[in-house]
């Protein structure tokens, strides 16, 4: 049993409420059970790392949480709405307004400048041009790129590109930020900078879900969920002493 007295129980409202979901794929003649019954509850302003070796169902879970895919069975509540029963347009709307994706390879549009890349979610949300530019600019200033508004992605360093991607994820004020190996393509120093940006975002009240296989990166989160063979192996909250040691660094 976990010692709950020594850890910080999250108390905010539930954002993600996954109950016993499964996901099966048909690969040729075989059925692959990627997820075999996973339950996960995420509260507002949590900072969670999802870890696991490849083939553990980590990516499938991330796609599920990110509303890119729907489960074969089980229930997925997002802010109280059942995602499992949504159609493609409703899923697109959830991705647009409630989820901010940050990818390992940044995935910026190469021909669009920084501002335009960050405006993109607002365009799909139907925000008017003036508000759009204002919000995108402000978000870019928040991630420290106020002086790079009109640069193309290929004129930016890796760390700067990832900051643009994070600004894009933040610009629609989503309920969660879903980062998939966000430091995987960065050197360790830049990686640390990005992680401290996440820490900053977390402290400002954002909910962050980090998918990674690196323990060093996962260490930044307050809660770590480990997957193996499509099942949750462990779900650990950071203990108070750990938190204290973190505050010292």
């Amino acid at each position, binding site marked *: 049993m976990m010692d709950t007295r020594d850890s910080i129980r999250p108390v905010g409202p539930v954002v993600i409420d996954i109950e016993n979901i499964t996901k099966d794929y048909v690969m040729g003649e075989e059925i692959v059970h990627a997820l075999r019954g996973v339950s996960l509850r995420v509260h507002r302003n949590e900072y969670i790392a999802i870890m696991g070796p490849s083939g553990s169902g980590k990516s499938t879970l991330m796609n599920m949480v990110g509303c890119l*895919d729907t489960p074969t069975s089980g229930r997925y509540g997002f802010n109280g709405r059942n995602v499992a029963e949504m159609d493609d347009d409703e899923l697109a709307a959830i991705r647009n307004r409630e989820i901010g994706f940050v990818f390992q390879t940044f*995935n910026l549009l190469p021909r669009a400048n920084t501002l335009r890349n960050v405006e993109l*979610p607002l365009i799909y949300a139907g925000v008017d041009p003036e508000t759009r530019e204002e919000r995108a600019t402000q978000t870019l200033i928040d991630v420290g790129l106020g002086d790079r508004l009109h640069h193309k992605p290929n004129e930016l360093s890796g760390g700067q590109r990832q900051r643009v991607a994070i600004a894009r994820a933040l610009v629609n004020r989503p309920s969660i930020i879903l980062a998939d190996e966000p430091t995987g393509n960065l050197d360790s120093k830049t990686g640390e900078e990005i992680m401290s940006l996440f820490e900053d975002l977390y402290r400002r009240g954002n909910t962050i879900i980090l998918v990674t296989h690196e323990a060093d990166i996962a260490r930044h989160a307050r809660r770590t969920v480990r997957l193996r063979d499509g099942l949750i192996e462990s779900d650990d909250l950071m203990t108070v002493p750990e938190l204290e040691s973190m505050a010292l660094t």
Partner: protein
Amino acid sequence: MLFSEIVRMALSSLGANKLRAALTMTGITIGVFSIISVMTAIGALQNSIESGISFLGSNIFQFAKYPVNIDAGGETKKKYQNRRNITYRQALRYYELMQGNAQEICLKCFGRDLKGQAVYNGIKTTPSLTVVGTNRSFLTANAYTLSYGRNLNDEDVDLARSVLVIGKMIEKRLFPHESPIGKVIRMSGHTYTVIGVLVEKGTSFGQSQDDICLMPITRFFENYGEANRTVNIATQPFSTELYNRTLDKGISAMRIARGLGANQENDFEIYTNDSLKSAFISVAGVVRIGAFVVSFIALVAAGIGIMNIMLVSVTERTKEIGVRKSIGARSRDILRQFLTEAVFISEAGGVVGIILGVIGGDLLALWLKVDLIFPFGWAFAGLVVCSAIGIGFGLYPAYRAAALDPIEALRYE
């Protein structure tokens, strides 16, 4: 999503592949150009014909062996070739029968087989003069005017004099510094004395009308033979009111001259300005249909080109589509984006085609010396067709893009 945003996205992705977009556009441009240029030129011609160009002199009707457009080919062409020629004897018989019933009767025989080349004092004209054996009525019948000197007269015909009335072009070429009247020139193996010069008439349908030389029809037959030649007969009534009555008399006289029985069909053609106009219009119709078919084929080919390039583009941009979907683009947003690109290529090609087509068609009109036009109807139709092509051939690639699974698309490298 705002339409302006979709257009902006389409322009930006087309801008990334300028050459490719331009090449794809070119197909549409060619298709639209071919139809618009033909429609412009024909429209301009028809306009000027309907506003009163005369093929023949005013009120004139004409009998001839061949119809205006014998390009019908095959059996029809044979039918006309097998017709008896209108001989000089028949023509003279008609002339006699119509005496007192018509103002002018012009008998004319064109020496199309002769290489008409005139030589004077070592200077030569081009070997493509129009040589005509005729009488005094040619000028009236074919709307020429005498500049100076004299016209052919009945005596010239009766005596088969070796005299010529020449067109302005011949005068300019052979007699730049002197009067040609009374000078002897050599043409197609015989010598002639120049008696008159015609006023410049310009070109008609791109052909000069000033490289003509007229001689008495009797002299023409004597010098170049009568066999295998057919005579055209133009008749001018005394007045416009008498036109129909004179035409009826003329047809009867012609039937008598040709020796036709009561239940035999006319074995000659009747030209009137109206029949020539309608002949032109029917030729124009055929040319239009031809242009239509060519354009249609070109546009279908161009449409397939658009589809091809859009499919390539969808594959190339799979990752982009995945990213767009992950940040909230709906399938219909992606569909619209790609469809707009296809329509844009098509429309841009169409607009260029229309501009070039109007320029091309009007240049032709300029050369034919008719008024210029802008074919609004065809231009509008062109734009509609281009939109239809863009949508028609862009739909499948756009649908493919929209239907991509976001997870697969994101994973695509």
